[in-house]
C-alpha cells in the first residue's frame, strides 16, 4: 500500500544514503571503556545507583529514574565504574554527567538478565513497566522513553501503532540496514509494542527510496499472517519521518497542535525501538547497544555499526576506517537537524542514529553563506511542513514580539531546517526560531513568577491586615472588659 504526503509541503533533498548502506552492519568489538551520559538525548537525566569502584556486569542497572522523561541505564560492559563526572556528551549544552565504565575483558552477564519467558502472558501495564525497567527509549533520534509513550497511548485509547521506518533525513540509513537485516525482529517487537499500547493495528511506514527494506519487511509480515499488520510505502520527502507529519501521511489525520499523537489515535515508535524490544523479549537484554550510521565525506569507509551505548565517537570513526580529508564538523544526527559536537570523546547515546563527519564538500553551502535581508519571497513558507510563515515569524523573532511569535506558531516549528535550506537570503531562520522560543519560554517563566509573587504578596498583605484587625479587636475587648467594673461602679453610684 502506498500513501501520498498530506502534510503541508516538504522537499526532496539529496539523500547521500548510498555511502553507508552498501555494506552489512559491522559488529563493533567491545571497547575498553564506555561513558554513559545520564541524559541519553531526551533532555532529562537518570540518577546513578552505582558508586565509583563498583563492579558491574553486562546489563547491570547503573542509573535509574522515576522521572517519566528519562530512561534507566545499564552497563554494556563487564568491569568497574571508574568515574562519575561531567564530560563531553552528545546532548544539549555539549556536556553531561557520565558514568564511565572500564572493561575487565570478560563478557559476564548480569544475573538479572534472563529471557522473558512469555511476553504474551504479561498485561499491557506489566509489559510497559518491564520496558521501562529495560531502559527502552526512542532510538529514532528523540530518546524519549518508550514506556511513557505507551502509557499515554493507552490512556488516550490509541488504536494504531505506527512504526516509523521513514528515515527521511539525508545520510542516515541505520534503520534501513536494520530492517533489511533483522526484519523479523522488528515485526516481533512491533507485536509486543502493539499489545503494550493497547492498539489493534500496526502500520510500518517506509519511504519509497528503500525498496530492499520494503521487501524485507513485507516478507516478515507475510510470515506472521497477521491481517492487522501492514507496510505502507510513503514518498521520500523530507521531513516525512517527523512524527506528526508521518502520522498525517499515513492516517490523513492531523495531530492537534496542543495535543499528542495519541489524540489522533496513533502511537508512533521507531523501527529500531521495535527491534530493541524484540531483543529484550528474546534475551531479556535492556538497551546495551544500537545500530548507528557512521558516514560523511570525512570518514574513510562509511558504514552502519552496532556499538555499545557509551562508545566514544572516536572509536566509532576508527571502526569506519578513521578520519579522511579535513573534517570540519562532527554531527550527531543528519545534516538537517543533527547537533554539531565539540569533541569526539562524547559517547554514543540511545538517541544517536548517525555520526556525520562533514568536510567542506558536505557543508560548504552553509559555511559560505552570506546573510542578506529577507525579500519576502515566500520560499520558506512553500516548504514548511508545519504550515508556518517563517518570513513573518522571522520579523516577530527579531522584534521579540511575544504575542506574534505565539500566534504565528513559533512553538509549532519542528526544527526541520527546510526554511534555512531554501532561503535565498541565507538567513539562519531555524536557529533564530530556536532562540526566540528560548526567550519566549524565559519571558513566560518570568511572567509566571511575577504572578506568583503578586499572589503571595496579596495573601501576605491580607494576612497582616487580618492579624492587625484581630489584635485591635482583642485589645478593644480587653479594654472594654477592663472598663466594665468602673462602669458598674458608676452605675452603682447613680
Amino acid at each position, binding site marked *: 500500500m502506498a500513501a501520498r504526503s498530506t502534510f503541508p509541503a516538504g522537499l526532496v533533498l539529496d539523500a547521500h544514503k548510498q555511502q553507508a548502506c552498501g555494506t552489512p552492519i559491522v559488529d563493533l568489538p567491545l571497547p575498553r571503556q564506555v561513558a554513559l551520559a*545520564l*541524559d541519553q538525548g531526551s*533532555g*532529562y*537525566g*537518570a*540518577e*546513578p*545507583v552505582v*558508586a565509583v569502584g563498583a563492579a558491574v556486569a553486562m546489563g547491570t542497572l547503573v542509573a535509574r529514574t522515576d522521572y517519566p522523561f*528519562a530512561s534507566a541505564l545499564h552497563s554494556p560492559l563487564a568491569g568497574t565504574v571508574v568515574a*562519575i*563526572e*561531567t564530560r563531553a556528551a552528545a*546532548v*544539549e*549544552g555539549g556536556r*553531561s*554527567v557520565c558514568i564511565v565504565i572500564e572493561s575487565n575483558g570478560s563478557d559476564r552477564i548480569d544475573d538479572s538478565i534472563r529471557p522473558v519467558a512469555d511476553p504474551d502472558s504479561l498485561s499491557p501495564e506489566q509489559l510497559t513497566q518491564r520496558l521501562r525497567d529495560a531502559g527502552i527509549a526512542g532510538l529514532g533520534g528523540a530518546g524519549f522513553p518508550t514506556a511513557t509513550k505507551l502509557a499515554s497511548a493507552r490512556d488516550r485509547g490509541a488504536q494504531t501503532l505506527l512504526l516509523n521506518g521513514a528515515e527521511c533525513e539525508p545520510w542516515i540509513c541505520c534503520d534501513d540496514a536494520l530492517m533489511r537485516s533483522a526484519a523479523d525482529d522488528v515485526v516481533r517487537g512491533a507485536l509486543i509494542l502493539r499489545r503494550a499500547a493497547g492498539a489493534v493495528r500496526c502500520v510500518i511506514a517506509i519511504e519509497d527510496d528503500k525498496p530492499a527494506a520494503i521487501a524485507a519487511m513485507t516478507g516478515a509480515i507475510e510470515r506472521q499472517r497477521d491481517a492487522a499488520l501492514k507496510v505502507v510505502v510513503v514518498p521520500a520527502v523530507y521531513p516525512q519521518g517527523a512524527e506528526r507529519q508521518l502520522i498525517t501521511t499515513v492516517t490523513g489525520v492531523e495531530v492537534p497542535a496542543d495535543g499528542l499523537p495519541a489524540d489522533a489515535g496513533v502511537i508512533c515508535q521507531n523501527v529500531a525501538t521495535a527491534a530493541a524490544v524484540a531483543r529484550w523479549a528474546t534475551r531479556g537484554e535492556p538497551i546495551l547497544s544500537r545500530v548507528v550510521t557512521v558516514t560523511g565525506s570525512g570518514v574513510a569507509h562509511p558504514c552502519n555499526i552496532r556499538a555499545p551505548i557509551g562508545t566514544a565517537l572516536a572509536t566509532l570513526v576508527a571502526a569506519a576506517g578513521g578520519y579522511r580529508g579535513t573534517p570540519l564538523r562532527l554531527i550527531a544526527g543528519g545534516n538537517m537537524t543533527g547537533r554539531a559536537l565539540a569533541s569526539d570523546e562524547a559517547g554514543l547515546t540511545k538517541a544517536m542514529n548517525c555520526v556525520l563527519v562533514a568536510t567542506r564538500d558536505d557543508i560548504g553551502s552553509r559555511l559560505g553563506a552570506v546573510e542578506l535581508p529577507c525579500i519576502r519571497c515566500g520560499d520558506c513558507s512553500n516548504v514548511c511542513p508545519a504550515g508556518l510563515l517563517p518570513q513573518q515569524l522571522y520579523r516577530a523573532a527579531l522584534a521579540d514580539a511575544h504575542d506574534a511569535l505565539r500566534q504565528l506558531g513559533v512553538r509549532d516549528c519542528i526544527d526541520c531546517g527546510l526554511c534555512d535550506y531554501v532561503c535565498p537570503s541565507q538567513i539562519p531562520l531555524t536557529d533564530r526560531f530556536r532562540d526566540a522560543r*528560548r526567550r519566549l*519560554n*524565559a519571558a513566560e*517563566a*518570568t511572567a509566571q*513568577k*511575577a*504572578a*506568583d*509573587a*503578586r499572589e*503571595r*504578596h*496579596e*495573601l*501576605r*498583605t491580607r494576612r497582616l491586615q487580618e492579624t492587625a484587625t484581630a489584635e485591635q479587636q482583642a485589645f478593644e475587648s480587653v479594654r472594654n472588659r477592663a472598663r466594665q467594673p468602673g462602669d458598674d461602679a458608676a452605675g452603682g453610684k447613680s
Partner: protein
Amino acid sequence: MNPDAVFVAVLVAAALAVTLGVALGWAASLIEPDADSLVERIDALLPQTQCGQCRYPGCRPYAAAIASGAAEIDRCPPGGDATVRALAALLDRSPRPLDPAFGAPKPAQVAWIDEEKCIGCARCLPACPVDAIVGAPRQMHTVITAQCTGCELCLPPCPVDCIELRPVPAVSLRYRQPRAA
C-alpha cells in the same frame, strides 16, 4: 430677520445640545474606563518584586499611583526599560529613561542566606514581602529561591549581614542538568 426663526433656531440648538449631552454622558458611563481595571492592567506589567524602590509599599500601590497620575512611569528599576516601554504603550505616553533617583536596574537576583552565619533572629521573616524566607526564632533560615523576587528588603534587618543577593541561575528550559549522586 424673523425673530421667531431665531427663537426656533436657538430652541432647536439648545434641545440638540441637551439631548446629545445626555446621550454622550450615558454612553460615557457605559464605556467609562474602570479605574480598578486600569490599575490591574498596570499592575500586570510591573515585575512584582514588591521591593518598594518606587517608594510605594509594593507594586499594586505604585500601579494605583500611576493610574491616578500621582507617579510617573519611570520609577521601577527591577522592571527596567522594558517595563517603562510596556507602561508607555499601555498608557499611550512616550517612553522615558528610568529616573536614577529610584535606583539603577540590575540583573535578576535572588537572596541567599549563609547558613553558617545566620543566628536565627527571625528579623528578616516579616521583611519579606512574598513570604519567601522560611525559618523560626533560633532556627536557621533559608530562602525559597523559586519564590524570592530579589527585592533586597531582607538585607537591612539582618544584624549579621548573612544575606547576600546572587544572580538568578540562567532560566533552565526543557533541559535539566542531570546531577551526580
